[in-house]
Every structure is written in structure tokens, then in C-alpha cells.
């Protein structure tokens, strides 16, 4: 027999290593203002999620939570490129994408803690972060569907001639499910203003993407099947992402139809809190830690002349904000029991019979 997984033991698949030149985008045409904004975002995402992890360990965060530690440059690069009115569609691994749109940390953290001041009043949880006010149109926890829903928002923007673009983030593993295919063809046929962003972090939950995918690049190698250009970007370099994001958004906004971007990155931790990450072959995590998006970006700022003290000041400001949000979340009241019975229907209630 010739099964892909009979050629190697589980966990012994080939390593995918990061690029090794962090200077490649030092002279990219990106303003220092934008760069500092992205650096701050990276810090917010990182420090926020580390805090979420700590709270998890203290058993304050219930259920499950999926961190994107190590993948922040994708969220920051896109977040900084999007217009205020553009739509974000994220997954259960959506903390960073939510913060990237300016959603306050307190609401997100309080939601993880199941408090009344949570973004969703405790009814959604970590996997369903949504802030319509910030055009974060939801985080979706069942693989695939949200690509088709993002199409709908893009269709609406097209119909309303609003100039908005829908940006839809999803993982490498998601490229193998049916809804991915339906969404991509549909978007291409109707030239919808949507940008699909595959965060290829090399794994679905515990299985290496290469072990269960017929092509090497799960998104890019599928793009031509929808008449799209294959685009791959270094997902650990916020500047690289930012440039590609700006171009993709402009393309979609101009009516030329969808774009799909595959961003190569890596998650430092496990899939979710339950995962010890044993399937990662030796050396892989270390290589990606050495190419950590924050390290890459801080190095760049320093080479471009930003004083270490100024950078440290940003870090400290973010740390203070995270502390403040933590306090507010911890001090948040439990949801009113009556909240469990509201908003099944648009009339605010849950009655289904007379």
C-alpha cells in the first residue's frame, strides 16, 4: 500500500522551516507611522494572548481557547491595511483578528471569562468573537462555512456599491473541506470583493497539512482552479503581509474580483489548550521561534533607527492596557441569568409557541 502516512511515522513528517532573512522588507515602502502601529498591534496580540493563557491556567477561562501566538503578523499586516468599513471574518482562532480591528481588550477577555461585560455577554465565548461595531462580523468555529458567509458580505457591499471589502481568514486545514471550494468558485464567478487569507501554520489540529493534502501549497496551488493568481507571502513578516494585503484589498475593491493569499506561518503553542504539540518534529518550533514575528519586526524597527527605549515604551503601554483589561474582566459581573433567554429571535426573546 501506498498511504502517505505509511511512508513515515506520525510526527516524523518533513519540517517546513521559515525564511531566514528578517531584513528582506527593511526598505519596503511603508511609513514609520504604519510600522509603529503594526508593532503595537503585534504587542497587543502577543501580550493579550499570553495573558489569556495565564488565565486559562488559573482556570478562569473555561471551555477551550485557541491562541495564535507566533501568527500575529498576518493579523497585524491585514489589520493595518484594511479600511474602517471593511469586514473581517475570522475563525475560533480569532483573538488577534478581533484586536486588529480595534475591539477593546476588556470585552474580549471578559468574554473568555464568561462575564456580563464580555463582547457577547458570555453567550458566545472565545470561539465566536464578534463586534459588528468594528465590522468584525464574527468568528466561526465550524470549518468552512464562514468563507461562504464572507462572500455574502462582499456581495452585499457590491450590491450596495459601498466600496467595502470582506476579508476572510482561515487555516491551511480548511482548504480541504467542501465549503472552501464552493466559496472560492462562487466568489470568482460573481467577482465579489473578498480577500481570502489562508493562514498556513503547517498543521490542522495535530496532523501536518502535507500529510493530508494533495498539493504542497494548500491554498496557492488551488488558486488557479478558480482562475486566481497563486500568492504566497511570508506570514511572519508584518511588512510583507501588509504590502500583499494592500494590493489584494485594492484589487478586490476595484471590482476585479476576489484574491486568495497564502501566508506561511507557525503557531508556537498547541492547537488548543488540550494539545501538548507532540507531533511537531524536533527543531521545527525552535526554527520558527527564532523567526518570531515580533522579533523580526523589532529588529527591523531598530535597524531603521527606532530607539530601543521607544520600543520598550510601547511594550510597557500595552502591558498596562492588558493589566487593566484583565482587572476589568475579572471584576466583571456574571451574566444576568435572564440573558440566557434573550436574543434567540429578533424580537429579543426565545418564545416559539403561543
Amino acid at each position: 500500500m501506498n498511504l502517505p502516512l505509511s511512508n513515515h511515522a506520525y510526527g516524523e513528517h518533513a519540517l517546513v522551516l521559515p525564511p531566514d532573512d528578517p531584513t528582506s522588507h527593511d526598505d519596503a515602502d511603508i511609513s514609520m507611522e504604519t510600522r509603529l502601529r503594526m508593532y503595537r498591534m503585534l504587542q497587543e496580540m502577543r501580550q493579550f494572548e499570553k495573558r489569556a493563557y495565564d488565565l486559562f491556567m488559573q482556570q478562569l477561562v473555561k471551555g477551550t481557547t485557541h491562541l495564535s501566538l507566533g501568527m500575529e503578523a498576518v493579523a497585524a499586516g491585514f489589520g493595518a491595511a484594511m479600511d474602517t468599513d471593511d469586514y473581517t471574518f475570522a475563525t475560533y482562532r480569532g483573538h488577534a483578528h478581533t484586536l486588529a480591528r480595534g475591539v477593546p481588550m476588556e470585552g474580549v477577555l471578559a468574554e473568555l471569562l464568561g462575564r456580563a461585560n464580555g463582547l457577547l455577554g458570555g453567550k458566545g465565548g472565545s470561539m465566536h468573537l464578534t463586534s459588528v461595531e468594528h465590522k468584525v462580523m464574527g468568528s466561526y468555529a465550524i470549518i468552512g462555512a464562514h468563507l461562504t458567509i464572507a462572500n455574502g458580505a462582499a456581495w452585499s457591499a457590491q450590491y450596495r456599491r459601498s466600496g467595502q471589502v470582506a476579508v476572510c481568514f482561515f487555516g491551511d486545514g480548511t482548504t480541504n473541506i467542501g465549503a472552501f471550494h464552493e466559496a472560492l468558485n462562487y466568489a470568482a464567478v460573481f467577482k465579489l470583493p473578498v480577500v481570502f487569507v489562508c493562514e498556513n501554520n503547517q498543521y490542522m489540529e495535530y496532523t501536518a497539512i502535507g500529510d493530508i493534502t494533495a498539493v504542497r501549497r494548500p491554498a496557492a496551488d488551488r488558486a488557479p482552479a478558480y482562475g486566481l493568481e497563486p500568492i504566497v507571502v511570508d506570514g511572519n513578516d508584518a511588512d510583507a503581509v501588509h504590502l500583499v494585503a494592500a494590493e489584494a484589498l485594492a484589487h478586490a475593491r476595484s471590482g476585479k474580483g476576489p484574491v486568495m493569499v497564502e501566508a506561511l506561518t507557525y503557531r508556537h503553542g498547541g492547537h488548543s489548550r488540550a494539545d501538548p504539540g507532540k507531533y511537531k518534529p524536533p527543531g521545527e518550533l525552535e526554527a520558527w521561534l527564532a523567526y518570531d514575528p515580533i522579533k523580526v519586526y523589532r529588529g527591523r524597527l531598530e535597524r531603521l533607527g527606532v530607539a530601543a527605549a521607544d520600543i520598550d515604551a510601547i511594550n510597557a503601554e500595552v502591558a498596562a492596557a492588558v493589566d487593566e483589561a484583565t482587572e476589568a474582566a475579572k471584576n466583571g459581573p456574571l451574566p444576568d441569568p435572564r440573558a440566557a433567554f434573550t436574543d434567540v429571535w429578533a424580537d429579543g426573546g426565545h418564545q416559539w409557541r403561543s
Partner: protein
Amino acid sequence: MAILTYREAVARGIAQEMERDDSVVLIGEDVAGAGGVFKTSAGLLERFGPERVIDTPIAEQAILGAAMGAAMTGLRPIAEIMFSDFFAVCWDLVVNEMAKTRYMTNGQVTIPLVVKSGNGGSLRFGAQHSQSIENWAMAVPGIKVVAPSTPEDVVGLMAAAVRSDDPVLFFEHKGLYSSKGEVPDGPIVDELGTARVRRPGKDATVVALGLMVSRALAAAEQLAERGIDCEVIDLRSLVPLDAATVLESLGRTGRLFTVEENPRMLGWGSELVAIAGDDGFWDLDGPIVRITTPHIPLASADSLEDLMIPSVDRIRDEIEQALKP
């Protein structure tokens, strides 16, 4: 007043709402150029143009996803799932996304959309194209479920569905498409969650839906000749459920029958039995009888299909039998 077929009434109801509101759009397989495989959208492309009436690929998840995303962001889409059996290929969008998103987001997201679909049997289409699946949808909190039985109701309930701010599954009965009925002129707007007494009666309450309504009425006529006076209620929507009308009737008649096209287990009738048990137990003068398709997939041969779906004769006989002193 005009005589319309049920299928014409579907198009009329949609046209009425598209005329009124620019944000109403229609998507689905073959709904535009061909006017729908059941001709329930005939003329809409010509009238409203290709931006509002759109043929899609065969991609039911993409269709419902597009409808949902558009509904979340300002449109009021109507999507067609050609045969209701095909909901199974896009059920995730219905039960996990449309049904739960308002609740999960604590009311941030509103999803005003309608999914219309050809439902039910009697056309010899076999097990995969004849199912009555309104009970699948009824089991999922967050989805409204409508199933009209007359052309007039089709127009008015379609309007109500389009105007609802919640996702609505609109089950058109394939076996009724060519049936005709009078429809008043001018706009018609009905109300979801309101059952209709189609025939008043005092001996027994007979509740039916969709194709079963006319059969229940025919059975009631025959029973009347035998001295049994049935009240026939057309449920019209399962969610919201007009239990009050049923319970009120039961309070008067003391006996309840359901006539269901769905396979027996977990049809809407079982819920009605349970509700009557909760709220009308002491009104019951005897067991509630569910007259249903047996719990079996539908066979395609006409002679076999006719054995399965409740017929006028079977409805009449089961009621008569149960009421025998």
C-alpha cells in the same frame, strides 16, 4: 381577485416584496434565466434584472452562505434550495450558522433571510427527492419554519417571511405547485405563527400541514356524511407554533389527530402530542392519533408511494376507527 396556481403565487409573493424593497434579492440554481425548475420565479429576472435575480452554481453551501452574509450586512435575500432534500448538503449553514449567530453574538447580528424550497412527495420522485423535512428544521432553535397550503397563503406568508428579521425556511409543497386558488388583488401580508381553522367542527380536532390539509379536509367531508364532525386546522407554520389555536380547539372537541406527511418518528405531530399533554392533558378524551407516513424512506413506484403518504381514505379510516365508541 385572480385564480393563481400555487407556483404562480410564489412568484407573485416574491415580486410583491421585491417591488416594495430594493434590498430583496433572489439567488438559486436556475432561478433566473429559467424562472426556477418549478417555475416559482418565472418572470422575475425580466422584471427585476440580473443584479437582483441570480443564477448560481450548484453549491448550496455557497448559496446559503451568500444569503446569510448579505443578510448580516443590509440585504434581505431569498435563496432557493431546489428540493428540500438538498438541505442536507448545506445543513451546517442553517443549523450552526443562521440559527445560532444572533444568540451567540448577544443580538449583535440580525439575519433577515428566507430560504424557499420544494418540499414533500406524491410526485414519484423517489426517496431522495420527496422528503418532508420541516421537522428537521423545527428541531433547531433559531429558525422559523413556514409551510403554506394555498396560493393565497403562499403570497401572504412569503411576504411575512421576507419581512421577518429572523431566518425563515419556507417550504413550498411540490405536490401543490399546480393546484389553484383565489388570491385577492393588491399586496397581501400575512402573519407567521398563526394557524387557520379551515373547517369548524365539534367532534375532533384534526391538524394538518401542506399537502395534508386538502386531504384532511376531504376526509372530514366524508366523515361528516358518517356523522363525525371534524374541525380541520391548517398549522401553516411550525415555528412560531400557534399552539393556542390547537389547544383551544382541543378544549372543545376533546380529541386530537395530526395528519403528517413526514416519516413517523419525531414529526411535528409528536411535539403537538407533547404540548397537548403539557397544556391540554385533562382535555383529552382519548389518545392523540398521529396519522403519518410510516417511518420508512419513500418508494418511487406510484403504487408504493401511495401506500405510504396518508391518503384521504386512510385519514378518514383512522379517525373513524379511533372515534368508534
